[in-house]
């Protein structure tokens, strides 16, 4: 293919990338902030190493390419524990990298610069690998030997421009870059589609490779798992290594934490991103086998490009080229941006502050991006095909994994100290360099061979303590991480935890002026808004977080020194007292809620007990007449020839007991209706007419008993529940008729703001001992059901009235009750 055509295609693709990023910052901002874009942006994990290298690895080493993608799947399943906590911390302190977190967590001034320098060294070859992938693909398709390097340089410069334009518009790197995220998400889609289409078309064109494997025994090991204990250990190590790399790679922290606009997006990412990895890995094995079958002499890393050409599909080869370019460019842009932030926050900022040139930090950050990419390009030019470049992917992963002990223990173990973290990191880094980095340089011929053998057989860099059989990556990973972890834990156990940093306080005006000087007017305005109502120490903490997001936590702390002072003891005490007051108020509210709950429980318990008692009483009261009815009926049945007078006496008793039973059931039903519908239905009611109606209803019983009914009724109207008042009147009248000797009197009159009813009889009256119990359920003293007065009291309480017993023993009984007048809007509040 024409190199100019390829170059034009490459430039066109990069132009499209700029356009997508511009859209992300403009009209497609909502799309860039969507959970789908977030999940796709995580796929910056899949680099050119995935796109070209996984097929190559599958074609030479079999299934060991897969653990690199199983690790991230495992990590994302733990997002509620890991990412949830990291996001919370990142928002509070405006973290931009793990180095920021480690500095804030441990406060050790050496940690930030150490990590920044180490990651720059560890990841530079990885960046160079991406540039090499683009150049190699270009060279392969154009069929030329040059201008390989020039294409890589041009690409590096364009990507640096992209990262500067869309990643460093402002000084605050903790701000979101929607354009960058959308471009990365777009590239993730391109590489996935490209690889799936290449896999599908090549399969169709060259046929299913699996049946052909049987005729090529040399390919069978590619379809089998790694052999033996060493093979399994390598598999497990690769899963663990990729999991840690996914968590600690600077570019992954950038897209998953810094660019996260909503923690809830992790719900989608937790399954969508592993699905993405599964899909992108589906064509790997068929492509690897087809490559081995059809292109035995070809470089396996180029099968993705060579197979479409072999299948007679040059357009597909172009698509594969663009897929590889998209995988490499996304990684280069985000990684160089993340590294430049790391370097500028932890290495450049303190230097610039010392030389009073912090105002030029943004320019230096942009220069850092350019510098990182130019260094990567230089490394690629120097290393070429050397092992120090081609074998560097996993070595970089092991470098990044050195942050894990300090990072994870710092998140979950309070006992980790700054000295422990530093010792662990130094030990891990030293072992990484000794077992992996220096041998890689020696293997490339840049260092003497002694770095491959070691000074003593027990100190062999790729077999410490005489260990044999492990591949160098597994060995280096396990050795460095174990030493790192042991030192972090061990030193932490033997060093004292640092005292809590002294609190600082400051005036909002002074802090705002500092923010204006360092970050500009916009930051000052944002600070003033957020600082309203905050105490001096809280405002100082807020200013520190804002500064830390832009210039790094160490520089922010130094910048704050002249604008703040140590929080005086009184201020600390005041703060502690305020927090203590809040805690006390909270505890008081909790205690009140507990008391309310306890009271509600007691009420419920009492109601439950009352219900049980009522049930027992009802059963008992029903049993007595039922027993009588049964006994009488049995007597009548057993003695058919009873004298007529006797028979009539028994029949009358039967009728009486049945009547009593019927009344009891009716009153129980009235009681259950009252319980079921406790709120009264108030309507304007003529109480005199109501009283006359009650008298009329009671008249037949009075006539039967020969009792005279008297009434003294005034004209009264009120809002009340007509049916309930009628029920009360009937209960009282029937009660009076049951006890009266010759006369029952009903009175109705106004009394103040109430209506007074009185029902009096000339019976024997209520015995003194029974008076407190007359309104309790089933307390009958004359053969009644014992529910009438109880119901009357409950009904009246529901209507806002009250009832009481008048008169003395031996002078007849008189029950009086009141009802409120004019109660249209008020809740009587009597119902229980």
């Amino acid at each position, binding site marked *: 293919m024409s190199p100019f055509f390829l170059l034009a295609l490459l430039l066109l693709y990069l132009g499209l990338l700029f356009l997508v990023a511009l859209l992300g910052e403009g009209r497609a901002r909502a799309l860039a902030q969507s959970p789908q874009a977030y999940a796709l942006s995580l796929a910056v994990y899949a680099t050119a190493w995935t796109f070209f290298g996984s097929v190559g690895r599958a074609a030479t080493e079999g299934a060991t390419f897969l653990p690199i993608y199983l690790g991230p799947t495992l990590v994302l399943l733990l997002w509620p524990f890991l990412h949830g906590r990291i996001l919370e911390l990142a928002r509070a302190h405006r973290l931009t990298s793990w180095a920021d977190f480690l500095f804030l967590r441990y406060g050790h001034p050496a940690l930030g610069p150490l990590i920044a320098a180490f990651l720059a060294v560890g990841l530079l070859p990885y960046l160079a690998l991406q540039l090499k992938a683009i150049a190699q693909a270009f060279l392969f398709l154009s069929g030329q030997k040059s201008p390989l390097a020039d294409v890589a340089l041009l690409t590096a410069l364009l990507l640096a421009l992209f990262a500067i334009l869309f990643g460093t518009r402002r000084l605050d790197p903790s701000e979101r870059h929607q354009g960058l995220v959308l471009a990365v998400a777009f590239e993730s889609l391109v590489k996935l589609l490209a690889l799936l289409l290449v896999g599908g078309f090549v399969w169709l064109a060259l046929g299913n490779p699996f049946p052909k494997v049987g005729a090529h025994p040399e390919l*069978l090991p590619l379809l089998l*798992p790694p052999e033996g204990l060493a093979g399994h250990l390598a598999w497990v190590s690769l899963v663990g290594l990729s999991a840690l790399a996914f968590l600690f790679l600077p570019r992954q922290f950038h897209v998953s934490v810094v660019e996260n606009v909503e923690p809830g997006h992790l719900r989608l990412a937790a399954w969508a991103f592993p699905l993405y990895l*599964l899909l992108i890995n589906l064509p790997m094995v068929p492509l690897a086998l087809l490559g081995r079958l059809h292109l035995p002499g070809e470089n396996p890393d180029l099968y993705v490009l060579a197979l479409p050409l072999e299948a007679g599909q040059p357009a597909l080869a172009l698509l594969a080229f663009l897929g590889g370019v998209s995988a490499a460019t996304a990684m280069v842009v985000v990684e160089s941006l993340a590294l430049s932030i790391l370097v500028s926050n932890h290495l450049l900022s303190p230097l610039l502050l010392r030389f009073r040139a912090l105002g030029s930090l943004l320019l230096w950050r942009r220069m850092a991006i350019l510098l990182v990419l130019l260094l990567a390009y230089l490394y690629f030019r120097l290393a070429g095909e050397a092992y120090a470049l081609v074998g560097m992917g996993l070595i970089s992963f092991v470098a990044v994994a050195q942050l894990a002990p300090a990072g994870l223990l710092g998140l979950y173990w309070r006992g980790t100290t700054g000295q422990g973290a530093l010792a662990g990191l130094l030990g891990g880094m030293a072992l990484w360099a000794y077992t992996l980095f220096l041998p890689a340089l020696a293997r490339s011929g840049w260092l003497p061979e002694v770095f491959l053998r070691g000074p003593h057989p027990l100190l062999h860099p790729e077999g410490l303590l005489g260990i044999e059989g492990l591949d160098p990556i597994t060995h280096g990973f396990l050795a460095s991480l174990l030493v790192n972890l042991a030192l972090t834990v061990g030193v932490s156990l033997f060093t004292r935890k640092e005292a809590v940093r002294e609190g600082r306080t400051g005036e909002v005006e002074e802090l705002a002026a500092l923010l204006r000087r360092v970050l500009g007017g916009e930051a000052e305005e944002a600070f003033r808004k957020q600082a309203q109502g905050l105490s001096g120490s809280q405002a100082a903490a807020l200013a520190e977080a804002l500064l830390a997001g832009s210039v790094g936590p160490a520089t922010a702390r130094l910048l704050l020194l002249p604008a703040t002072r140590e929080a005086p003891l009184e201020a600390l005490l005041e703060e502690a007292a305020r927090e203590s007051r809040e805690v006390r108020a909270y505890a008081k509210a909790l205690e009140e809620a507990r008391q309310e709950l306890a009271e509600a429980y007691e009420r419920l318990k009492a109601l439950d007990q009352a219900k049980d008692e009522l049930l027992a009483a009802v059963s008992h009261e029903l049993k007595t007449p039922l027993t009588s009815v049964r006994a009488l009926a049995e007597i009548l049945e057993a003695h058919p020839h009873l004298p007529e007078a006797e028979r009539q006496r028994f029949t009358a008793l039967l009728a009486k007991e049945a009547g009593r039973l019927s009344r009891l059931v009716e009153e129980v039903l009235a009681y259950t209706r009252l319980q079921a519908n406790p709120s009264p239905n108030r309507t304007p009611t003529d109480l005199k007419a109501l009283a006359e109606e009650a008298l009329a209803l009671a008249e037949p019983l009075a006539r039967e008993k020969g009792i005279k009914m008297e009434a003294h009724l005034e004209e009264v109207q009120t809002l009340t529940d007509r049916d309930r008042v009628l029920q009360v009147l009937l209960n009282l009248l029937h009660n009076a008729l049951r006890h009266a000797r010759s006369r029952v009197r009903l009175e109705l009159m106004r009394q103040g703001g109430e209506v007074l009813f009185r029902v009096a009889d000339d019976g024997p009256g209520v015995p003194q001992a029974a008076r407190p119990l007359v309104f309790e359920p089933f307390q009958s003293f004359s053969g009644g059901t014992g529910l009438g007065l109880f119901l009357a009291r409950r009904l009246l309480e529901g209507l806002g009235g009250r009832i009481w017993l008048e008169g003395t023993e031996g002078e007849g009984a008189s029950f009086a009750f009141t009802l409120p007048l004019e109660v249209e809007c008020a809740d009587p509040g009597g119902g229980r």
Partner: protein
Amino acid sequence: MREKAFALFLLALFLFLMPLGLLFREAVGPLGLPPLYLYLYGAWGLVILLAYLLFRRA
């Protein structure tokens, strides 16, 4: 949800890290496809499906 996520993590850990060399001794299996890859992609797909069922609710 946290407990279920942790349980799913343990399941995935078991599925991904079990000693595959003891289970898959044949390179070619049903339909001429390699059993090792059928298992690995199947287990991976199962974990993703379970993660989808667990995390899908907003």
